[in-house]
């Protein structure tokens, strides 16, 4: 008798592609519709880790997201990559939620799915880069969290994860269910496959839930129930740069550069 299948929930967010970050001047928020978008890269790394677990043992991978219906694009990609199904929590009242309502709403969605063993998230998003939602979900569900991990090992009922701290590497062990946040770039996310894309087209594989479907309290979500707001956005004022560029033969150019750096007191020998 083999090990029981694990249910792994991966939280993903759809973000504008890095080079395409565009601010809507009216709302001072990121344009999300009509710009090239992708799965938040750390979330894709998290999904890849989940799929690697599924490669090795019986597991059900469910990708979930909270956002407008355009996020279906990313959920479809997740299923195309190999996730078994997807849930989009989508509801107008969620608009403008900061990380407190987001963690709450995703937690409720996860509870509704139920019976989960692991929740994986990317360490942070490339558009907001707070890194709050993963730990926030753990706080709401009161389950263990291990952040900034690159590797997962599963033995019976325990999970071991390799965590990157500033000054070294840590190996942690905990029980399931738990939340793990995954380091950007620790895996190479696989491409969607033909079978995956066929699964995307099957009815019921990707579902939309509203707040009412999940039982989310409207008084705890949305812009007006978010503790933080973005009051304003300034452009960064960077120091002007001298741009003294030297061309030509390596020996000459280096000599000129070295002269300039020494003269201007940038370096001393």
């Amino acid at each position, binding site marked *: 008798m083999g090990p029981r299948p694990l249910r792994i929930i991966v939280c993903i967010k759809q973000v504008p592609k890095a080079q395409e970050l565009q601010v809507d001047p009216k709302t001072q928020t990121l344009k999300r519709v009509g710009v090239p978008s992708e799965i938040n890269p750390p979330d894709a790394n998290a999904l890849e880790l989940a799929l690697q677990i599924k490669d090795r043992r019986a597991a059900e991978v469910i990708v979930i997201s909270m956002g407008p219906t355009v996020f279906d694009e990313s959920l479809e990609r997740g299923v195309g990559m190999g996730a078994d199904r997807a849930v989009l929590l989508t509801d107008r009242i969620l608009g403008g939620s900061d*990380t407190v309502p987001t963690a709450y709403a995703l937690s409720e969605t996860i509870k509704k799915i139920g019976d989960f063993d692991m929740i994986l998230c990317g360490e942070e998003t490339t558009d907001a880069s707070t890194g709050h939602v993963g730990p926030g979900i753990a706080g709401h569900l009161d389950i263990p*969290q291990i952040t900034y991990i690159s590797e997962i090992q599963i033995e019976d009922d325990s999970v071991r994860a390799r965590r990157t701290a500033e*000054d070294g590497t840590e190996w942690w062990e905990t029980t399931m269910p738990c939340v793990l946040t995954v380091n950007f770039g620790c895996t190479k996310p696989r491409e969607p496959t033909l079978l995956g894309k066929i699964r995307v087209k099957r009815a019921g594989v990707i579902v939309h839930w509203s707040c009412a479907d999940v039982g989310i309290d409207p008084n705890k979500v949305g812009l007006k129930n978010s503790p933080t707001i973005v009051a304003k956005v*300034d452009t960064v004022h960077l120091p002007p740069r001298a741009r003294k560029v030297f061309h030509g033969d390596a020996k000459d*150019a280096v000599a000129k550069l070295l002269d300039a750096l020494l003269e201007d007191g940038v370096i001393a020998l």
Partner: protein
Amino acid sequence: MTDGEHVVEDKSHFTGVWVFLEGRKHILRDVSIQLIGEGRRIADRRGAHLTGILPGHSVENLARQAIGYGLDRVIVVDRPVLEIYQSRPYAKVMATLIRRHKPEIVLFGASKNGRDLGGRLHAVLETGLAADCVKFDLDEEGNLDMIRPSFGGKSLAHILCKRHRPQMASARRNVFLPPPHDPNQTGEILHEEVDVNEKDVDATLLEFQEFTREGGLRPEEARIVISGGYGLAEGKNFAMLQELADLLGGAVAASRKAVDSGWMPKEFQVGQTGMTVRPEVYFAIGISGAVQHLAGMQESEKIVAINNDPKAAIFEIADYGIVGDLFQIVPEFVRQIRERKATKAVPMPVAAR
């Protein structure tokens, strides 16, 4: 924070500026020290006390050390179970203390543990947390104006938490200046009881392997950073950069592409998803200058770029640069520096020929 009924408590009940103190192996983290300085500035403007919060075990020395940086007092919660940082017990301690004392502002260093803690805590307390701040101010109403980079580092967003308390923020490392240390500074050390023990622990640290410090300084600490990118083509070519770094007394770093290619470990990565550095001089070698990389180094005092593509974006923000083949330029640079150092070191012969 709500009063338990989803109604936000009257914020006038909340006073005081708190700094979460983080240590490893009985040394205060640099970001905690930096935050004490900034916390002092904010507390003074608010006319409030500055308190350090130190959960841990046998941390009396650490508490005293912290006072020396300018804290009015330190609240210590000393339990064996808090000896090393763990999410759940630490979050429980912080939540309990915050509910008990109602600070107006709580600051964390945006270290891995700081963000791990803040993230869990802000959901439990249902209050605002601004991540990775680089500046703080106060708005007209006295709310904390939490300023952080956004949109890939091209903008600065001002985050306000107007109705909820405490206002929480994590602060980026090496942005705020560490305050001077005065061992004669006096301040209270309060020991508080929080019901936290073994049953609150839900994870075990099996092993910790410190990064060895071979190969010189770490980029965040160095005055000169020599950073290599995709143009280096191979991992072994970073040895050339290390040579240059050693000559100039600097540290080697890498762009994300170089790290992704496996040429350098992740802890040397500079950029939006790596670390931010602001050295006196940043050498960008074989680095094209993608927006995400710039976000991690664009505030360096002086930037020197070496790239064989004259149109590379890095030249837009460089003070000095050479367009050419780095495999010729870097060794030549090393050679010429050695030469000049040698001529300086040799004393003038008494009798010239």
